[in-house]
């Protein structure tokens, strides 16, 4: 048999596939889906409990969350505004998250651009900046919260919305920078050169070419900054002072009993998150 004939025979054998075992369910086809669903259940279960118990009736005593099922009610949704302090802390958290997101996204994006664009001769201390970014993400929050409090006390800055904003921006910048930077990795610089070649100045090039192309990264970074700010407890607890954000308020309430409205707000925040996720899926499907 010549080498060519042998190769052809081998090719034919490969085409026909192995003659063994075609029927029956292979274990691999079962393990993965079962495992996936278990993980999903594990992650979703606590949230599901919260949503279910936001509809739980309270029969006697104080209006507090209890985990005995007393029947279905929409009372807490109708009276979502009834707990003094809770609603205002919720709105404080939202205002804080929006402000922190805007500031951190702008600063983080600029930082990412600088890190991608420039190298040591022009950008001295680039490695140091990268290390600080990493440290910022890796450092335990309790350390950051305590040191921020120390700083604000030292410089005698009254604790409130401003100190919260400064702290939230401080821990969000690194996340935004890392996310935007990842998006920039595949960015073709010749697109910017092409824009310049066609008569666009630096600002127009940034606005018409660079910004739209890195926008998905910026939005992802912004979303992350928003989520970090909304659910931050550790740092906020240190620097909040008189302005009490939602997580700090809830933590305070646990000592005396959580009003069911907390579950209403929790469910609402979760639903908004779900809607954002769905919208992002729809948008990314629609684009070719």
């Amino acid at each position, binding site marked *: 048999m010549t080498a060519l004939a042998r190769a052809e025979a081998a090719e034919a054998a490969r085409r026909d596939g192995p003659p063994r075992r075609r029927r029956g369910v292979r274990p691999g086809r079962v393990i993965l889906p079962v495992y996936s669903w278990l993980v999903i259940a594990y992650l979703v279960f606590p949230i599901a409990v919260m949503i279910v118990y936001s509809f739980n009736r309270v029969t006697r005593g104080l209006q507090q969350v209890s985990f005995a099922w007393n029947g279905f009610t929409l009372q807490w949704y109708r009276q979502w505004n009834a707990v003094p302090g809770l609603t205002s802390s919720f709105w404080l958290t939202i205002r804080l998250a929006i402000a922190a997101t805007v500031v951190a996204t702008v600063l983080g994006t600029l930082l990412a651009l600088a890190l991608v664009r420039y190298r040591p001769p022009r950008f001295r201390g680039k490695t140091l900046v990268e290390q600080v970014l990493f440290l910022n993400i890796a450092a335990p929050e309790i350390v950051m919260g305590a040191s921020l409090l120390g700083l604000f006390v030292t410089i005698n800055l009254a604790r409130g919305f401003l100190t919260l904003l400064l702290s939230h921006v401080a821990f969000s910048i690194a996340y935004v920078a890392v996310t935007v930077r990842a998006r920039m990795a595949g960015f073709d610089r010749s697109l910017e050169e092409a*824009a310049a070649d066609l008569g666009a100045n630096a600002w127009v090039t940034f606005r018409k070419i660079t910004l739209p192309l890195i926008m998905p990264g910026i939005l992802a970074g912004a979303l992350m900054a928003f989520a970090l700010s909304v659910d931050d407890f550790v740092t906020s607890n240190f620097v909040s002072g008189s302005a009490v954000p939602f997580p700090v308020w809830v933590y305070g309430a646990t000592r005396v009993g959580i009003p069911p409205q907390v579950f209403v707000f929790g469910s609402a925040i979760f639903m908004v998150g779900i809607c954002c996720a769905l919208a992002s899926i729809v948008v990314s499907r629609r684009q070719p």
Partner: protein
Amino acid sequence: MTETHTARAAAAGEAGPDAALPAIELAGVAKEFHSGGEVVTAVRDMDLAIREGEFFSLLGPSGCGKTTTMRMIAGFEEPTRGLIRLHGRDVTGTPPNKRDVNMVFQSYALFPHMTVFENVAFGLRRRQVPRNEITRRVGEMLEIVDLSGRERRRPRELSGGQQQRVALARALVNRPRALLLDEPLGALDLKLRQAMQVELKRIQREVGITFVYVTHDQGEALTMSDRIAVMNDGVIEQLGLPREIYEHPATRFVAGFIGTSNLLTGTVTRLAGELAVIEVSEAEQILVPVRGLRVGPGSPLELTVRPEKIDLATRRPADGACALRGTVTEVVYLGTSTSFAVTTTTGAEMVVFRQNSALAGDLAGRGDEVWLSWQPQHSYPIG
């Protein structure tokens, strides 16, 4: 298209006596890059004048400085020394957005978030051209590059060849004084590349704009160019018409880089009129036209002969021609022609192309003793 011609004529009229000026002029241009404390010279003291309306190619291997030269003309790199003039105006230090040249990028650099129309209209919008004029000019340009009806498409929905033509339209629609093309056909497959070569040449004739074409593909350069500059190691080795470059390579590098070339060396035995004679043996000789060269008996001489100029026979050819004896070491059938590798008695490796025809039959086989001969005018001295 008449519009473009009038525009050009008007521009020429304004320029008046400047009409004879070169479209692009490089005077003593050098470019050095600093990398890790080392200085890398990409372009050395280059003088170059590209004429108005010509199809000019910068040809050379990768790393020869051709792309750097083009990027300096476009304004993406500033020369370390020297001046760059566009139509007599010194543009050294002028940013790319203020230079009246446009570039077609190797990667096309089409804006992926914009439609074909928006891509092509980008340059016109930057110059505040009225909306209806933009629509008209973009439409005209898309017609020229044969992409009408695809205005609403996104770049990624187009084939490689179509993207290439969008890139071309996006640059040409601005009616630049010169168009710079950086290996624009590199990413296309062979068939499409050949079709686009013809297409590019047609478009260049139609719009009458100076094209500066950077390529490492000698076939491409020879096919399309009016003039070619062959670059190596930051310098222009030879500048001339495609035919001159191919048939009279000025340096060893050009001879080796353009097509297949046979390089021979020898010592001049005597002079016969304007021919230098290198007598290899009693029956073998090489004749080289050396008019204008300072060559005498005893001086070493280097020359090239193109493989298709050489005849291959079993008998010694008539007197008055160059003749060498050798042994065939390889025969490669190439379809329309056959390539023979021959080792001469002097030990030189030579390549000979012969046209295939039914009449000729098989000229020689491996191991055959053959005679190589060619006319003296096909010997080109180098140096």
